[in-house]
């Protein structure tokens, strides 16, 4: 554990990685960025300077927020990350990207402000303590909690706050999407983890809601994804879905106590790590799929990632899912019936996730087929290496990350294998049946447009108004009246009049006196 107060930076600045989990978080984030960087070397072809500038700023922001041990440092990192990501989103310069970017930026700013308010309130609640470590000890006001949830939630992108995700991810270049989905949205989660004091009463009450919300998000994301025909949109919705699981994990962390909490935290970090690698790898794959000629091992890698996504045994997914279920059952704060219901619904979630994976596989294949693969360039070494890092990391995660190893071992027990496999099998079955029937999604249901892009345009019109003329006083006939007065004031007879008036005044004065 290294923590380090730096006197000469902003007030209270201190850095360090508080515990093993934070180290792990830092580690996977760093790896993710490195992989994306490798991938970007040849993938990015226009406006390279800008791309790298903002890539690096976003990366440093992301790393800073993990490393920061004080509020301001965290906020600095968070803001740097989320704002410079805007440049990554609109990098392609297409109108779609700009629309998506606008929505992203609007929400990022709003989120930033809400977060700022939340942080200020939070610090105020704890008597101006700027050290993160001391924040978690205190109670929390409902308003602060709400603001925190909204602020971080807008970044984390779970269910009701996910609106920017399906827009921004397809617009951004693949490596940018990878880090967006793999690392940046996790930062929101990380923030919640860091800022919300688990033991506060309010948190205990709200966590149950969050648990349900997380599951909703998980189901919603996966189901909506099936409607979409663009691979990156599907991936984005998958992220929404997966963030739902992670939200559940977080809620479990809050709800559980003692050792169970440590376990739940491990699950949370493990889940984040797992999802980061696989989603980044998938995005890289999806990016390569549209404009590069893929080799067989590429498809293998994509397959493995999907395999992991649906949490089939031996993958890291299975481990973290198992951990999640364990955690859900281990916590005692929520009603038992709710936990059991949720436990059951998690299987439905797995089913939908599997459907999504299959849908995605088909889409990617179609994408590759649709283009003349021979005329496509081959995937370059840099890209391969970036991809490779992620896939290898994904495969090796259960072994490399010691804290999740118990779950992995547990997940290959027979019951666990069955529990994780039957939804997948059901999904495959369902998929095959649908295939067999030949039912395809009606045209008008495909790619539903999000209303939020339109709303963002309206919002923009609201604040980009034309200047109006200043309010001016106009008096009709003012000038001529004034001229008359002036002429009157300078008349010759005025003197004698004045003399008379003066004399009368004095006379009256005198007589009265």
């Amino acid at each position: 554990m290294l923590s380090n107060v730096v006197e000469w930076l902003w007030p209270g600045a201190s850095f360090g990685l508080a515990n093993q989990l934070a180290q792990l978080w830092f580690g996977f984030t760093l790896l993710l960025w490195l992989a994306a960087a490798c991938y970007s070397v040849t993938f990015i072809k226009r406006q390279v300077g800008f791309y790298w500038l903002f890539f690096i700023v976003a990366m440093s922001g992301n790393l800073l927020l993990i490393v920061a041990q004080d509020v301001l440092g965290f906020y600095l990192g968070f803001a740097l990350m989320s704002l410079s990501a805007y440049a990554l989103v609109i990098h392609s310069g297409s109108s779609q990207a700009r629309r998506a970017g606008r929505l992203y930026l609007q929400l990022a700013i709003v989120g930033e402000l809400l977060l700022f308010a939340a942080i200020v309130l939070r610090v105020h609640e704890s008597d101006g303590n700027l050290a993160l470590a001391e924040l978690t000890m205190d109670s929390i006001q409902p308003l602060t909690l709400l603001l925190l949830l909204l602020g971080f939630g807008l970044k984390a992108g779970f269910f009701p706050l996910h609106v920017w995700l399906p827009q921004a991810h397809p617009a951004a270049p693949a490596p940018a999407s990878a880090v967006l989905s793999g690392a940046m949205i996790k930062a929101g989660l990380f923030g919640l983890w860091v800022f919300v004091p688990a033991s506060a009463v309010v948190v205990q009450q709200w966590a149950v809601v969050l648990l349900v919300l997380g599951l909703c998000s998980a189901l919603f994301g996966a189901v909506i994804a099936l409607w979409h025909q663009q691979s990156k949109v599907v991936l984005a919705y998958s992220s929404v879905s997966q963030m739902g699981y992670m939200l559940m994990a977080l809620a479990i962390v809050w709800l559980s106590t003692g050792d169970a909490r440590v376990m739940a935290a491990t699950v949370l970090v493990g889940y984040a790590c797992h999802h980061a690698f696989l989603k980044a790898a998938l995005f890289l794959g999806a990016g390569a799929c549209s404009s590069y000629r893929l080799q067989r091992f590429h498809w293998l890698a994509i397959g493995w990632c999907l395999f992991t996504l649906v949490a089939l045994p031996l993958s890291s997914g299975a481990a973290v899912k198992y951990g999640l279920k364990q955690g859900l059952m281990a916590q005692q704060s929520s009603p038992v019936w709710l936990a059991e219901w949720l436990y059951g619904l998690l299987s439905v979630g797995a089913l939908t996730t599997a459907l999504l994976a299959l849908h995605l596989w088909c889409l990617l294949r179609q994408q590759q087929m649709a283009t003349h693969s021979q005329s496509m360039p081959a995937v370059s070494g840099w890209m391969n290496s970036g991809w490779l890092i992620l896939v290898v990391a994904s495969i090796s995660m259960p072994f490399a990350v010691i804290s999740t190893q118990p779950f992995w071992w547990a997940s290959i027990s027979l019951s666990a294998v069955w529990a994780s496999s039957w939804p997948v099998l059901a999904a495959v079955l369902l998929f095959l049946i649908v295939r067999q029937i030949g039912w395809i999604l009606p045209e008008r249901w495909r790619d539903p447009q999000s209303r939020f892009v339109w709303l963002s345009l309206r919002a923009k019109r609201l604040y980009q108004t034309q200047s109006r003329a200043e309010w001016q006083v106009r008096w009709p006939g003012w000038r001529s009246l004034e001229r008359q007065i002036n002429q009157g004031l300078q008349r010759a007879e005025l003197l004698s009049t004045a003399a008379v008036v003066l004399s009368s005044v004095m006379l009256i004065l005198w007589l009265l006196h």
Partner: protein
Amino acid sequence: MNYALAAVLLPLLAALLALGWRRYAAWVSWGGTILSLLCAIVALQQVLSDGPQQMLLGNWPTGLAIRWQLSELTALLLLLTTVIHSLVASYSLTSLRRLQVAADFWPLSSLLQMSLSALWLSTDLFNWYVTLELLGLVAVAMVTLSGNKSVAAALRYLLLSLAGSLCYLLGVALLYGQFGVLDVAELATRMPASESHMTTFALVLMTAGLMLKGALWPLHLWLPAAHAVAPAPVSALLSALVVKGPLFILWMLWSQLATVELSHAAAGFFLFAGSMALLTGGWSALRTPYAKVMVAYSTVAQLGYALLAIGLALRSADPAFQLALWLFIIAHALAKTSAFLAVGEMQHSLGGKRVQMLKGASQTMPVAMFALAVAGGSLIGLPPSGGFLAKWQLLLPLWPEWQLWLWLLVIFLGTLLSAAYVFRLVVLAFDRADPVKPDFAPQLLPQWLALVPALLVWGLAFGSHSFVHWLGG
């Protein structure tokens, strides 16, 4: 006292010499002024060290003789007169050569200085009449210096001035008829005790006459025409000095001769007249299309402050109002000198009488324009000018008396109006799009001389301690 006497006689001698020895009129007059300036300084010093002094002319007993009194106030006014006259004379030395009737300017201006000095020193009702008459005639004669175009204004000025003098004289006669003395101090011992309709009427008559001569609202209408038509140094002298004479007498009359009730009643009138002067004078100055008329109206407005101060001083025992009155007089004299000299200089070089001729003056005649702006700053009352000092002295005792809030409002509005008309000129001067080209190369020295009084008045606030010490008791 001897030096005060010298300060009165030197300009008289200079005037006589200048009349007789016409070739060197300018130098003689100028030399006389400078010498009298030195004398006035010494006189002030003596008063400050030895206290007030008095002189009975001819060494006859009190009552029979005319009594001269040299107090701190009169010494200061004497100094003011000599300072302003020497400044104007210096300016005229450099600029008056272009005027046809220059030779007549010198004796007249020296006589003006002499008569005003005599007025300050005197404490005799009839002697005041004579000095007033003298002052009026000098002023009229000087107005006519600019030739035929000035005759109408000068004649009007003459007639009204005579009417004013007659009113005053009538009042003097009534008082003399009743009390048989002319010395103010003696009258002051008798008059308030035996107050009657007669004395009231005499005071009213004298007030009317003095207001007419001093161009106090509502009897100010002759002033803009007369002051605007005169040559620049003359306007400066008229506005800075001549109108202050009647004001001085007015204050002496009401503060010394009137009963408390009467002066309270009169104070209301003075306050009203002062407010109206401030507002209408300021407004007229703002709207007039001619530059010098504007400056002249500004005099009308500024005299409103003096009237306000008189009114307040009559109403309240606070000596600060008196102090404010004298400070206004001093600051206005200096500022107005500068303003008229500057405007005159610009009018001469740029051609035209309208305000519009000042377009671009800050580029073509920067020093003169600067002088005008600086003098205007004092008229507005911007710190640290003398105008500011005076206004400050007026505001300080005014604030604690809440029932007088109306006059605060008037002062506020008057200040805004003065700012409006001053900056109307200044803004025009910064016009670079369409500047007025000078007809010939502007002379630099007169411009600098026009600036001197403005700078003096801006340094005034730093000497305020002395003023308070001298005037406030």
